Protein backbone atom coordinates (compact mmCIF):
# COMPACT_ATOMS: atom_id res chain seq x y z
CA UNK A 1 0.00 0.00 0.00
CA UNK A 2 2.70 2.42 1.07
CA UNK A 3 4.98 1.74 -1.90
CA UNK A 4 2.20 1.92 -4.48
CA UNK A 5 0.88 5.07 -2.79
CA UNK A 6 4.29 6.74 -2.90
CA UNK A 7 4.65 5.70 -6.52
CA UNK A 8 1.33 7.39 -7.29
CA UNK A 9 2.48 10.52 -5.48
CA UNK A 10 5.57 10.66 -7.72
CA UNK A 11 3.38 10.15 -10.77
CA UNK A 12 1.07 12.91 -9.57
CA UNK A 13 3.99 15.32 -9.29
CA UNK A 14 5.18 14.50 -12.79
CA UNK A 15 1.64 14.90 -14.13
CA UNK A 16 1.37 18.24 -12.35
CA UNK A 17 4.60 19.57 -13.79
CA UNK A 18 3.54 18.75 -17.35
CA UNK A 19 0.08 20.23 -16.85
CA UNK A 20 1.46 23.34 -15.24
CA UNK A 21 3.57 23.96 -18.30
CA UNK A 22 0.32 24.54 -20.16
CA UNK A 23 -0.17 27.68 -18.11
CA UNK A 24 3.39 28.89 -18.57
CA UNK A 25 4.08 27.94 -22.17
CA UNK A 26 1.65 26.18 -24.53
CA UNK A 27 4.56 25.24 -26.79
CA UNK A 28 6.42 23.46 -24.00
CA UNK A 29 3.19 21.73 -22.99
CA UNK A 30 2.70 20.48 -26.53
CA UNK A 31 6.28 19.25 -26.76
CA UNK A 32 6.18 17.42 -23.44
CA UNK A 33 2.76 15.94 -24.14
CA UNK A 34 3.85 14.73 -27.54
CA UNK A 35 6.98 13.19 -26.07
CA UNK A 36 4.99 11.40 -23.35
CA UNK A 37 2.37 10.28 -25.86
CA UNK A 38 4.63 8.87 -28.52
CA UNK A 39 7.83 7.81 -26.75
CA UNK A 40 8.05 4.02 -26.90
CA UNK A 41 9.62 3.76 -23.45
CA UNK A 42 6.94 5.93 -21.85
CA UNK A 43 4.04 4.29 -23.65
CA UNK A 44 5.07 0.66 -23.46
CA UNK A 45 7.12 0.49 -20.28
CA UNK A 46 6.18 3.32 -17.92
CA UNK A 47 2.49 3.41 -18.77
CA UNK A 48 1.89 -0.31 -18.07
CA UNK A 49 3.80 0.10 -14.78
CA UNK A 50 1.56 3.04 -13.91
CA UNK A 51 -1.61 1.13 -14.76
CA UNK A 52 -0.41 -1.76 -12.67
CA UNK A 53 0.40 0.64 -9.82
CA UNK A 54 -3.04 2.22 -9.87
CA UNK A 55 -4.90 -1.09 -10.08
CA UNK A 56 -2.72 -2.68 -7.41
CA UNK A 57 -3.27 0.31 -5.14
CA UNK A 58 -7.04 0.43 -5.28
CA UNK A 59 -7.51 -3.34 -5.27
CA UNK A 60 -5.28 -3.61 -2.19
CA UNK A 61 -7.18 -0.67 -0.70
CA UNK A 62 -10.46 -2.55 -1.06
CA UNK A 63 -8.94 -5.80 0.24
CA UNK A 64 -7.59 -3.95 3.28
CA UNK A 65 -10.94 -2.32 3.91
CA UNK A 66 -12.77 -5.65 3.74
CA UNK A 67 -10.26 -7.33 6.08
CA UNK A 68 -10.51 -4.45 8.51
CA UNK A 69 -14.29 -4.54 8.55
CA UNK A 70 -14.20 -8.28 9.18
CA UNK A 71 -11.92 -7.82 12.16
CA UNK A 72 -14.81 -6.30 14.12
CA UNK A 73 -17.82 -8.53 13.59
CA UNK A 74 -20.26 -6.63 15.80
CA UNK A 75 -19.87 -2.90 15.47
CA UNK A 76 -20.18 -0.52 18.38
CA UNK A 77 -23.54 1.07 19.13
CA UNK A 78 -21.61 4.22 19.95
CA UNK A 79 -18.20 4.94 18.45
CA UNK A 80 -16.66 8.39 18.78
CA UNK A 81 -14.03 8.11 16.07
CA UNK A 82 -13.70 11.88 15.78
CA UNK A 83 -12.37 12.11 19.36
CA UNK A 84 -9.14 10.35 18.59
CA UNK A 85 -8.42 10.37 14.87
CA UNK A 86 -8.82 12.88 12.02
CA UNK A 87 -11.67 12.41 9.56
CA UNK A 88 -9.35 12.09 6.58
CA UNK A 89 -7.47 9.18 8.17
CA UNK A 90 -10.68 7.28 8.89
CA UNK A 91 -12.21 7.75 5.45
CA UNK A 92 -9.43 6.80 3.07
CA UNK A 93 -11.71 4.34 1.35
CA UNK A 94 -14.21 7.11 0.55
CA UNK A 95 -11.69 9.73 -0.56
CA UNK A 96 -9.93 7.00 -2.54
CA UNK A 97 -13.26 5.86 -3.97
CA UNK A 98 -14.04 9.35 -5.21
CA UNK A 99 -10.59 9.55 -6.79
CA UNK A 100 -11.20 6.21 -8.50
CA UNK A 101 -14.52 7.46 -9.82
CA UNK A 102 -12.78 10.60 -11.04
CA UNK A 103 -10.09 8.53 -12.74
CA UNK A 104 -12.78 6.78 -14.76
CA UNK A 105 -14.20 10.13 -15.89
CA UNK A 106 -10.71 11.39 -16.56
CA UNK A 107 -9.98 8.40 -18.76
CA UNK A 108 -13.16 8.96 -20.72
CA UNK A 109 -12.18 12.61 -21.13
CA UNK A 110 -8.58 12.29 -22.20
CA UNK A 111 -7.36 8.74 -22.49
CA UNK A 112 -10.07 7.13 -24.62
CA UNK A 113 -9.82 9.93 -27.26
CA UNK A 114 -6.03 9.47 -27.22
CA UNK A 115 -6.32 5.71 -27.68
CA UNK A 116 -8.78 6.30 -30.47
CA UNK A 117 -6.46 8.73 -32.20
CA UNK A 118 -3.41 6.55 -31.77
CA UNK A 119 -4.67 3.05 -32.41
CA UNK A 120 -7.96 3.35 -34.29
CA UNK A 121 -7.02 6.26 -36.47
CA UNK A 122 -3.48 4.92 -36.39
CA UNK A 123 -1.33 7.95 -35.55
CA UNK A 124 0.88 5.88 -33.27
CA UNK A 125 2.39 4.12 -36.27
CA UNK A 126 1.89 6.77 -38.93
CA UNK A 127 3.68 9.87 -37.79
CA UNK A 128 2.11 11.94 -40.56
CA UNK A 129 -1.32 11.45 -38.91
CA UNK A 130 -0.25 12.96 -35.60
CA UNK A 131 -0.40 16.67 -34.98
CA UNK A 132 2.23 17.50 -32.31
CA UNK A 133 0.51 20.77 -31.43
CA UNK A 134 -3.00 19.48 -30.79
CA UNK A 135 -2.66 18.94 -27.01
CA UNK A 136 -3.00 22.51 -25.86
CA UNK A 137 -6.13 23.26 -27.87
CA UNK A 138 -7.69 19.95 -26.79
CA UNK A 139 -6.97 20.80 -23.18
CA UNK A 140 -8.43 24.30 -23.40
CA UNK A 141 -11.45 22.96 -25.23
CA UNK A 142 -12.14 20.46 -22.42
CA UNK A 143 -12.13 23.14 -19.76
CA UNK A 144 -14.60 25.38 -21.54
CA UNK A 145 -17.34 23.43 -19.78
CA UNK A 146 -18.03 24.83 -16.32
CA UNK A 147 -19.53 21.51 -15.24
CA UNK A 148 -16.32 19.68 -16.05
CA UNK A 149 -14.27 22.26 -14.16
CA UNK A 150 -16.50 21.86 -11.11
CA UNK A 151 -16.22 18.05 -11.20
CA UNK A 152 -12.43 18.28 -11.51
CA UNK A 153 -12.11 20.76 -8.66
CA UNK A 154 -14.32 18.60 -6.41
CA UNK A 155 -12.22 15.54 -7.25
CA UNK A 156 -9.01 17.42 -6.40
CA UNK A 157 -10.44 18.28 -2.99
CA UNK A 158 -10.92 14.56 -2.31
CA UNK A 159 -7.48 13.79 -3.72
CA UNK A 160 -6.04 16.38 -1.34
CA UNK A 161 -7.78 14.69 1.60
CA UNK A 162 -6.54 11.29 0.45
CA UNK A 163 -2.89 12.27 0.25
CA UNK A 164 -3.10 14.56 3.29
CA UNK A 165 -3.28 11.38 5.33
CA UNK A 166 -1.85 8.86 2.86
CA UNK A 167 1.48 10.50 2.05
CA UNK A 168 2.65 10.76 5.67
CA UNK A 169 0.98 7.45 6.54
CA UNK A 170 3.17 5.75 3.93
CA UNK A 171 6.31 6.96 5.71
CA UNK A 172 4.98 5.69 9.03
CA UNK A 173 4.27 2.31 7.39
CA UNK A 174 7.83 2.26 6.09
CA UNK A 175 9.22 2.88 9.57
CA UNK A 176 9.92 6.61 9.66
CA UNK A 177 12.28 7.65 12.48
CA UNK A 178 10.96 9.97 15.17
CA UNK A 179 13.52 12.66 14.36
CA UNK A 180 12.12 12.94 10.81
CA UNK A 181 8.47 12.88 11.81
CA UNK A 182 7.82 16.60 12.10
CA UNK A 183 9.57 17.59 8.90
CA UNK A 184 7.99 14.72 6.93
CA UNK A 185 4.56 15.61 8.27
CA UNK A 186 5.07 19.22 7.24
CA UNK A 187 6.35 18.30 3.79
CA UNK A 188 3.68 15.70 3.01
CA UNK A 189 0.80 17.85 4.23
CA UNK A 190 2.06 20.88 2.33
CA UNK A 191 2.35 18.71 -0.77
CA UNK A 192 -1.18 17.38 -0.26
CA UNK A 193 -2.56 20.92 -0.25
CA UNK A 194 -0.35 22.64 -2.82
CA UNK A 195 -0.44 20.08 -5.63
CA UNK A 196 -4.24 19.58 -5.78
CA UNK A 197 -4.64 23.35 -5.42
CA UNK A 198 -2.31 23.70 -8.39
CA UNK A 199 -4.43 21.28 -10.43
CA UNK A 200 -7.52 23.34 -9.51
CA UNK A 201 -5.70 26.47 -10.62
CA UNK A 202 -4.83 24.93 -13.99
CA UNK A 203 -8.43 23.88 -14.64
CA UNK A 204 -9.82 27.25 -13.57
CA UNK A 205 -7.16 29.14 -15.53
CA UNK A 206 -8.03 27.41 -18.79
CA UNK A 207 -11.71 27.83 -18.10
CA UNK A 208 -11.41 31.56 -17.49
CA UNK A 209 -9.07 32.08 -20.42
CA UNK A 210 -11.35 30.13 -22.76
CA UNK A 211 -14.51 31.96 -21.80
CA UNK A 212 -12.75 35.27 -22.37
CA UNK A 213 -11.64 33.91 -25.73
CA UNK A 214 -8.17 35.26 -25.37
CA UNK A 215 -6.76 31.82 -26.11
CA UNK A 216 -3.15 32.27 -27.13
CA UNK A 217 -2.49 30.12 -30.19
CA UNK A 218 0.24 27.62 -29.97
Amino acid sequence: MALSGLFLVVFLLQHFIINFSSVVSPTTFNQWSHFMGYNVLVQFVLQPILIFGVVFHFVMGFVLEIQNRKSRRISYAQFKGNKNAPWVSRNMIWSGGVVLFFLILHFIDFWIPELNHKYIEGSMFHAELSDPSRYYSELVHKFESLLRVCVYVAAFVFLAMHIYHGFSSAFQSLGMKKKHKRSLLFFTQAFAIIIPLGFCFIALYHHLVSIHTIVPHA
Partner: protein
Amino acid sequence: MKIKLKIWRQEDSKSKGRFVRYALDSITPEMSFLEMLDVLNEQLISSGDIPVAFDHDCREGICGTCSLFINGRAHGPDRLVTTCQLHMRRFNDGDTIVIEPFRSKAFPVIKDLVVDRSSFDRIQQSGGYISINTSGNTQDANAIAIPKADADRSFEAATCIGCGACVAACKNASAMLFVSAKVSQYALLPQGKVEAKNRVKNMVAQMDLEGFGNCSNTGACEIECPKGISLENIARMNREYLFG
Protein backbone atom coordinates in the same frame (compact mmCIF):
# COMPACT_ATOMS: atom_id res chain seq x y z
CA MET B 1 -26.39 11.70 41.10
CA LYS B 2 -28.98 9.94 38.99
CA ILE B 3 -27.44 7.86 36.23
CA LYS B 4 -29.07 5.88 33.47
CA LEU B 5 -27.15 2.98 32.01
CA LYS B 6 -27.38 1.13 28.73
CA ILE B 7 -25.29 -2.00 29.16
CA TRP B 8 -24.47 -4.84 26.76
CA ARG B 9 -25.68 -8.12 28.26
CA GLN B 10 -24.67 -11.41 26.72
CA GLU B 11 -25.10 -14.73 28.51
CA ASP B 12 -22.10 -16.47 27.00
CA SER B 13 -19.88 -16.45 23.93
CA LYS B 14 -22.48 -18.37 21.91
CA SER B 15 -25.61 -16.36 22.64
CA LYS B 16 -26.72 -13.17 21.01
CA GLY B 17 -26.26 -10.09 23.14
CA ARG B 18 -28.49 -7.06 23.61
CA PHE B 19 -28.56 -3.75 25.44
CA VAL B 20 -30.38 -3.58 28.76
CA ARG B 21 -31.28 -0.30 30.48
CA TYR B 22 -30.78 0.33 34.19
CA ALA B 23 -31.26 3.36 36.40
CA LEU B 24 -29.26 4.26 39.54
CA ASP B 25 -30.04 7.13 41.86
CA SER B 26 -27.57 6.87 44.72
CA ILE B 27 -24.34 7.55 42.84
CA THR B 28 -21.85 10.06 44.27
CA PRO B 29 -19.31 11.96 42.15
CA GLU B 30 -16.48 10.49 44.25
CA MET B 31 -17.29 6.93 43.23
CA SER B 32 -15.08 5.33 40.68
CA PHE B 33 -16.75 4.04 37.54
CA LEU B 34 -16.28 0.44 38.68
CA GLU B 35 -17.74 1.26 42.11
CA MET B 36 -20.79 2.57 40.29
CA LEU B 37 -21.04 -0.81 38.55
CA ASP B 38 -20.56 -2.50 41.95
CA VAL B 39 -23.58 -0.54 43.22
CA LEU B 40 -25.58 -1.69 40.22
CA ASN B 41 -24.56 -5.31 40.82
CA GLU B 42 -25.48 -5.13 44.53
CA GLN B 43 -28.93 -3.99 43.46
CA LEU B 44 -29.23 -6.69 40.83
CA ILE B 45 -28.15 -9.38 43.29
CA SER B 46 -30.53 -8.22 46.01
CA SER B 47 -33.41 -8.24 43.55
CA GLY B 48 -32.49 -11.74 42.44
CA ASP B 49 -31.09 -10.76 39.03
CA ILE B 50 -27.82 -11.83 37.48
CA PRO B 51 -25.08 -9.22 38.05
CA VAL B 52 -23.26 -7.64 35.11
CA ALA B 53 -19.95 -9.36 34.46
CA PHE B 54 -17.02 -6.99 33.96
CA ASP B 55 -13.26 -7.37 34.24
CA HIS B 56 -11.19 -5.73 36.97
CA ASP B 57 -8.32 -6.57 39.28
CA CYS B 58 -5.89 -3.98 40.64
CA ARG B 59 -8.26 -1.02 40.35
CA GLU B 60 -5.25 1.29 40.32
CA GLY B 61 -4.39 1.41 36.63
CA ILE B 62 -1.48 -1.02 36.56
CA CYS B 63 -2.74 -4.50 35.70
CA GLY B 64 -4.61 -3.93 32.43
CA THR B 65 -7.53 -6.13 33.40
CA CYS B 66 -10.33 -3.57 33.30
CA SER B 67 -11.73 -2.70 29.90
CA LEU B 68 -15.13 -1.30 28.78
CA PHE B 69 -16.10 0.91 25.87
CA ILE B 70 -17.84 3.83 27.57
CA ASN B 71 -19.92 6.34 25.59
CA GLY B 72 -18.11 5.47 22.39
CA ARG B 73 -14.57 5.46 23.77
CA ALA B 74 -12.17 2.88 25.20
CA HIS B 75 -11.76 3.38 28.98
CA GLY B 76 -14.19 6.31 28.78
CA PRO B 77 -13.72 9.99 28.03
CA ASP B 78 -10.45 10.76 29.86
CA ARG B 79 -6.95 10.64 28.43
CA LEU B 80 -4.27 8.43 29.99
CA VAL B 81 -6.55 6.58 32.41
CA THR B 82 -7.92 3.09 32.64
CA THR B 83 -11.59 2.48 33.40
CA CYS B 84 -10.74 1.72 37.04
CA GLN B 85 -9.25 5.22 37.37
CA LEU B 86 -12.29 6.91 35.86
CA HIS B 87 -14.61 8.68 38.32
CA MET B 88 -18.26 9.55 38.25
CA ARG B 89 -17.45 13.25 38.57
CA ARG B 90 -16.66 13.08 34.85
CA PHE B 91 -20.39 12.57 34.23
CA ASN B 92 -23.40 14.75 34.87
CA ASP B 93 -26.52 14.11 36.89
CA GLY B 94 -29.10 12.50 34.63
CA ASP B 95 -26.60 11.26 32.01
CA THR B 96 -27.21 8.08 30.07
CA ILE B 97 -24.00 6.07 29.86
CA VAL B 98 -23.60 3.45 27.14
CA ILE B 99 -21.30 0.59 28.14
CA GLU B 100 -20.12 -1.98 25.59
CA PRO B 101 -17.41 -4.63 25.63
CA PHE B 102 -14.16 -4.04 23.70
CA ARG B 103 -15.12 -5.24 20.24
CA SER B 104 -12.79 -7.20 18.01
CA LYS B 105 -12.97 -10.53 16.25
CA ALA B 106 -9.83 -11.40 18.21
CA PHE B 107 -11.47 -10.44 21.56
CA PRO B 108 -14.58 -12.65 21.66
CA VAL B 109 -17.11 -11.86 24.38
CA ILE B 110 -17.08 -14.38 27.24
CA LYS B 111 -20.00 -12.88 29.15
CA ASP B 112 -21.57 -9.41 29.21
CA LEU B 113 -18.66 -6.96 29.23
CA VAL B 114 -15.90 -9.54 29.70
CA VAL B 115 -13.86 -10.34 26.62
CA ASP B 116 -11.22 -12.97 25.99
CA ARG B 117 -7.90 -11.19 25.42
CA SER B 118 -5.80 -14.36 25.37
CA SER B 119 -4.92 -13.52 21.74
CA PHE B 120 -2.51 -10.99 23.31
CA ASP B 121 -0.94 -13.77 25.39
CA ARG B 122 -0.44 -15.91 22.30
CA ILE B 123 1.23 -13.01 20.49
CA GLN B 124 3.51 -12.53 23.51
CA GLN B 125 4.33 -16.25 23.60
CA SER B 126 5.25 -16.23 19.92
CA GLY B 127 8.20 -13.91 20.47
CA GLY B 128 7.94 -11.60 23.46
CA TYR B 129 10.85 -13.05 25.40
CA ILE B 130 14.64 -13.10 25.53
CA SER B 131 17.06 -15.93 26.08
CA ILE B 132 19.16 -15.56 29.20
CA ASN B 133 21.81 -17.64 30.83
CA THR B 134 20.33 -19.22 33.94
CA SER B 135 23.08 -21.79 34.44
CA GLY B 136 24.25 -20.34 37.73
CA ASN B 137 26.68 -17.82 36.29
CA THR B 138 24.02 -15.26 35.35
CA GLN B 139 25.49 -11.96 34.31
CA ASP B 140 24.92 -8.90 36.42
CA ALA B 141 22.24 -6.79 34.76
CA ASN B 142 24.45 -3.71 34.95
CA ALA B 143 27.39 -5.39 33.23
CA ILE B 144 26.06 -4.34 29.83
CA ALA B 145 26.08 -0.58 29.53
CA ILE B 146 22.95 0.78 27.85
CA PRO B 147 22.53 4.40 26.77
CA LYS B 148 20.08 6.17 29.08
CA ALA B 149 17.92 7.33 26.17
CA ASP B 150 17.52 3.75 24.90
CA ALA B 151 16.78 2.42 28.38
CA ASP B 152 14.15 5.12 28.83
CA ARG B 153 12.40 4.41 25.54
CA SER B 154 12.48 0.69 26.19
CA PHE B 155 10.99 1.29 29.61
CA GLU B 156 8.28 3.51 28.15
CA ALA B 157 7.34 0.74 25.73
CA ALA B 158 7.37 -1.75 28.60
CA THR B 159 4.73 0.27 30.48
CA CYS B 160 2.10 -1.22 28.15
CA ILE B 161 -0.30 -3.08 30.42
CA GLY B 162 -1.85 -5.16 27.63
CA CYS B 163 -5.33 -3.82 28.22
CA GLY B 164 -6.40 -3.86 24.57
CA ALA B 165 -7.79 -0.32 24.46
CA CYS B 166 -5.69 0.30 21.34
CA VAL B 167 -7.53 -2.52 19.55
CA ALA B 168 -10.90 -1.41 20.90
CA ALA B 169 -10.45 2.19 19.78
CA CYS B 170 -9.00 1.41 16.35
CA LYS B 171 -11.51 1.54 13.52
CA ASN B 172 -9.68 -1.47 12.05
CA ALA B 173 -9.36 -3.34 15.38
CA SER B 174 -5.63 -3.45 14.77
CA ALA B 175 -3.26 -4.57 17.51
CA MET B 176 -0.22 -2.78 16.13
CA LEU B 177 0.30 -0.49 19.13
CA PHE B 178 0.33 -3.37 21.60
CA VAL B 179 2.56 -5.57 19.46
CA SER B 180 4.91 -2.70 18.64
CA ALA B 181 5.28 -1.88 22.35
CA LYS B 182 6.16 -5.50 23.05
CA VAL B 183 8.61 -5.60 20.13
CA SER B 184 10.16 -2.25 21.03
CA GLN B 185 10.84 -2.99 24.68
CA TYR B 186 13.29 -5.66 23.52
CA ALA B 187 14.42 -4.14 20.24
CA LEU B 188 15.94 -1.17 22.06
CA LEU B 189 18.11 -3.29 24.36
CA PRO B 190 21.20 -5.37 23.56
CA GLN B 191 19.60 -8.32 25.36
CA GLY B 192 16.81 -8.25 22.82
CA LYS B 193 19.04 -8.36 19.76
CA VAL B 194 19.55 -12.12 19.74
CA GLU B 195 15.99 -13.00 18.75
CA ALA B 196 15.20 -9.64 17.14
CA LYS B 197 14.62 -10.90 13.63
CA ASN B 198 12.38 -13.81 14.45
CA ARG B 199 10.61 -11.98 17.23
CA VAL B 200 9.04 -9.35 14.99
CA LYS B 201 8.25 -11.88 12.22
CA ASN B 202 6.60 -14.33 14.62
CA MET B 203 4.68 -11.77 16.63
CA VAL B 204 3.30 -10.08 13.51
CA ALA B 205 2.39 -13.47 12.04
CA GLN B 206 0.56 -14.43 15.25
CA MET B 207 -1.19 -11.04 15.30
CA ASP B 208 -2.52 -11.60 11.79
CA LEU B 209 -3.50 -15.17 12.63
CA GLU B 210 -5.60 -13.95 15.56
CA GLY B 211 -7.71 -11.85 13.20
CA PHE B 212 -6.72 -8.32 14.18
CA GLY B 213 -7.14 -5.70 11.44
CA ASN B 214 -4.47 -3.83 9.50
CA CYS B 215 -2.98 -0.58 10.71
CA SER B 216 -3.87 2.45 8.61
CA ASN B 217 -2.13 4.94 10.89
CA THR B 218 -5.18 6.84 12.09
CA GLY B 219 -3.49 7.32 15.47
CA ALA B 220 -6.60 6.52 17.54
CA CYS B 221 -4.66 3.93 19.59
CA GLU B 222 -2.07 6.42 20.80
CA ILE B 223 -4.79 8.82 21.96
CA GLU B 224 -6.77 6.14 23.79
CA CYS B 225 -3.84 4.22 25.30
CA PRO B 226 -3.97 4.68 29.09
CA LYS B 227 -0.19 4.44 29.23
CA GLY B 228 0.56 6.87 26.41
CA ILE B 229 2.38 4.30 24.26
CA SER B 230 3.64 6.26 21.25
CA LEU B 231 3.07 5.62 17.54
CA GLU B 232 6.85 5.82 17.28
CA ASN B 233 6.83 2.19 18.43
CA ILE B 234 4.73 1.17 15.42
CA ALA B 235 7.21 2.87 13.09
CA ARG B 236 10.04 1.06 14.89
CA MET B 237 8.29 -2.28 14.51
CA ASN B 238 7.70 -1.60 10.80
CA ARG B 239 11.39 -0.81 10.50
CA GLU B 240 12.34 -4.02 12.31
CA TYR B 241 9.94 -5.99 10.15
CA LEU B 242 11.00 -4.54 6.79
CA PHE B 243 14.71 -4.02 7.31
CA GLY B 244 15.56 -6.05 10.45
